[in-house]
C-alpha cells in the first residue's frame, strides 16, 4: 500500500523540540521530540487537537522559529531562516492591504529583482491559476475571504517554490469555498509536483487531500500516528474507504488523548471493536513514542 515509486526526501525532521518563553517568565513546551520525514512531491497533512504544536512545527519548517532541540533538514541542509524556496500560506488573511492583488502577487518577484515585464507576466499566470484574473486591480478589502486566500496561494506559488507550507489556509472559510479551494490545490499539485505540508483541523480535508496524514497529539506535541492514504483522486467523500480512513484517524487521536491524561479529552464517539481492517489506508510502522514523565 505504500507507494513504491522512489522519492527523494524533502524534509527530515529529527527529534525536534520547541519551548516558548511566555511573557510572565514561564516556559511552555510545544513540541517534544518530533521526528518524521517528508518525501518530495507528497501532500502531507498534519492533524491533531488544538495546542498539539501543528502550527509551531510548520513555522519551524518555514524558518520563522528556531527549534530548541533537534533539527530540521531541508534537502540535507538545516533550516535557519525563511526563504522563497518555501512558500507559506497563513491561516489569517495575510495580503498586504496597501497593494492590489497583482502587486501582492508580484511581491516575491520584486524581492528577487526580476524585470518588471517578467514580474507581471508570471504574476498574471499565477493569478489565472487560482481563477482571479478579473480581480487583479482590486484591493484585498474588496475581496471575500476565499478570494483573499486564493491570492495568498498565488502569491506563494509565483516564486515557484518546490515546497508549500499551508497553515490551516481554509480554516476561516465557509464550507463550499473550502471544497472548491481544496480542488484548486489538488489541481496545482497534480500539475506542478509540489511538496505540500498542510495543517488542518478538518479530518475530512486531510483525508480528501493528502497522500499521507501525520497525527500530532499531546501537550507537548508528539507524533502519535502516521498514515498513508492511497486512494486515487478525485476522492469520493461518502465512499466506504474514505469513511474508514476518517474513523481510523479519529481513533488514533482519541487513543492518544487517553494515553496522555487517562481522560478522554476528544469528544468523539468511541469506536470499540470497530477498527477498520487495513484497507486503503494503513499504519506505517512508527516507533512507540516516549511517554511523558
Amino acid at each position, binding site marked *: 500500500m505504500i507507494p513504491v515509486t522512489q522519492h527523494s526526501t524533502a524534509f527530515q525532521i529529527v527529534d525536534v523540540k520547541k519551548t516558548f518563553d511566555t511573557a510572565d517568565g514561564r516556559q511552555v513546551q510545544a513540541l517534544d521530540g518530533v521526528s518524521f520525514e517528508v518525501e518530495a512531491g507528497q501532500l502531507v497533512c498534519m492533524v491533531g487537537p488544538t495546542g498539539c504544536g501543528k502550527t509551531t512545527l510548520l513555522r519551524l519548517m518555514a524558518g520563522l522559529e528556531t527549534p530548541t532541540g533537534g533539527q530540521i533538514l531541508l534537502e540535507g541542509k538545516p533550516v535557519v531562516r525563511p526563504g522563497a524556496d518555501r512558500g507559506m500560506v497563513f491561516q489569517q488573511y495575510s495580503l498586504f492591504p496597501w497593494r492590489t492583488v497583482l502587486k501582492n502577487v508580484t511581491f516575491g518577484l520584486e524581492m528577487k529583482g526580476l524585470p518588471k515585464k517578467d514580474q507581471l507576466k508570471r504574476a498574471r499566470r499565477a493569478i489565472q491559476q487560482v481563477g482571479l484574473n478579473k480581480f487583479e486591480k482590486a484591493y*484585498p478589502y474588496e475581496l471575500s475571504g476565499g478570494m483573499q486566500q486564493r491570492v495568498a496561494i498565488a502569491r506563494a506559488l509565483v516564486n515557484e517554490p518546490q515546497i508549500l507550507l499551508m497553515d490551516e489556509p481554509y480554516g476561516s472559510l465557509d464550507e463550499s469555498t473550502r471544497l472548491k479551494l481544496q480542488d484548486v490545490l489538488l489541481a496545482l499539485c497534480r500539475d506542478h509536483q509540489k511538496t505540500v505540508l498542510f495543517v488542518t483541523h478538518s479530518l475530512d480535508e486531510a483525508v480528501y487531500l493528502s497522500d499521507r496524514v501525520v497525527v500530532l497529539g499531546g501537550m507537548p506535541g508528539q507524533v502519535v500516528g502516521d498514515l498513508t492514504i492511497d486512494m486515487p483522486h478525485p476522492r469520493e467523500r461518502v465512499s466506504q474507504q474514505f469513511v474508514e480512513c476518517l474513523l481510523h484517524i479519529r481513533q488514533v487521536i482519541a487513543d492518544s488523548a487517553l494515553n496522555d491524561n487517562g481522560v478522554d479529552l476528544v469528544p468523539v464517539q468511541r469506536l470499540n471493536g470497530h477498527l477498520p481492517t487495513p484497507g486503503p489506508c494503513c499504519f506505517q510502522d512508527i516507533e512507540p513514542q516516549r511517554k511523558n514523565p
Partner: protein
Amino acid sequence: MLRQAPSRKLLKSTVDLSSLKRWRHKMAVVSKKAWHKILPLFSVVILIALWQAIAVWVNNPFILPRMEPVWEVLSKPFEDVLGQGSLIYNIFLSALRVVLGFSVAVLIGVPIGLWLGSYNTPYRMFFPLVEMLRTICPIAFIPFAMAVFRFYTLPNMVGVRYSNTFLDDVMLGMLFVLFWGAVFPIVINTVSGVHGVKQLYVETAETLGASGRKIFWKVTYPAALPSIMTGLRVGAGVAWMVVIAAEMLPGSDSGIGYLIIYGYQLAQMHVLVAGMFCIGLVGFLLNKGLYYLSITTSRWQAKER
C-alpha cells in the same frame, strides 16, 4: 416565433423603464449628496446672523463689531490694513513660517520616528525623553528662542543681511518654536505606526524572500504610512496654532497673528474679527488638504475598518 414577438417587445419596454428608474435613482443620490454638502453652510449662516443680532443689541464697535465693517476688510484682501500690509500678505507670511517650520519637523521627525519605532534599545532609551519634552508647551519656548536666536533670519544664516524676499520675515526663533510644536505629534505617531505593523505582514514578506532593508521599505513603511499621515495632520494643526500665538508676542512685526494683536491695540475690533476669520479658514483648508493627501496615500486603511 409567435410567442417570442410580444415578449421581446415587453423586454424592451422593461429595459427602458429600468434605465429611467436607474437615472432617477442616480439623480436622487446626487441631489442627496449635494444636500449633504450644503447643510453645513446653514450653521455658518446661523452663526453670522446670531453675531449680527448680538452686535446690534450691544451697539458698541469697540466691544463687538457688526458684520458690515468686518466684511469691508474681508472683501478687499489685497488692500492695506492699518498700514501693516494686506490680509493676503500677512496670511502668506504666517503660512510661509508654518510651511518652513513644519517641513523641518517632517524631515527630522519622520526619520527619528522610524528609527525609534524599529529598534528597541533607542526606543527604550529616548522615548521617555520624548514624552517628557513634548509636554513643554511650544509657546513657553518663545522667550528661550528669542534669547538664543535673537533676530536672526533665514538669509542671515548664509551671511546675507537682507535678501529682499519674504524670507527676511522668517526668523529662526520662530521656526524653532514651530518645529517644536509640530515634531512631537509626528514622532509619536510615526513610532506608534511602526509598532502597529502586524508581525504577520513581516513574516509573510520573509517567506516571500524579503529581508532587512527590503522589509523596512516594502512592508514597515507602507504599513505605518497612515499613522505617519495622521501625525503630519496633527503636527500641521499645532504649527498653525503656534504661529498665531508666536506672532502676537513681542518681537514680532508681521503675520496674521501680529495683525490681530495690532488691531486690538488700536481698538479696531473689526480688523481683529476679520483676522480671526482668516485664521479659521486657513486652518480648515490646511486640515482638509492634508486629510485628502492622507486618504490618497492610504485609502486601504480607511476601507479596511
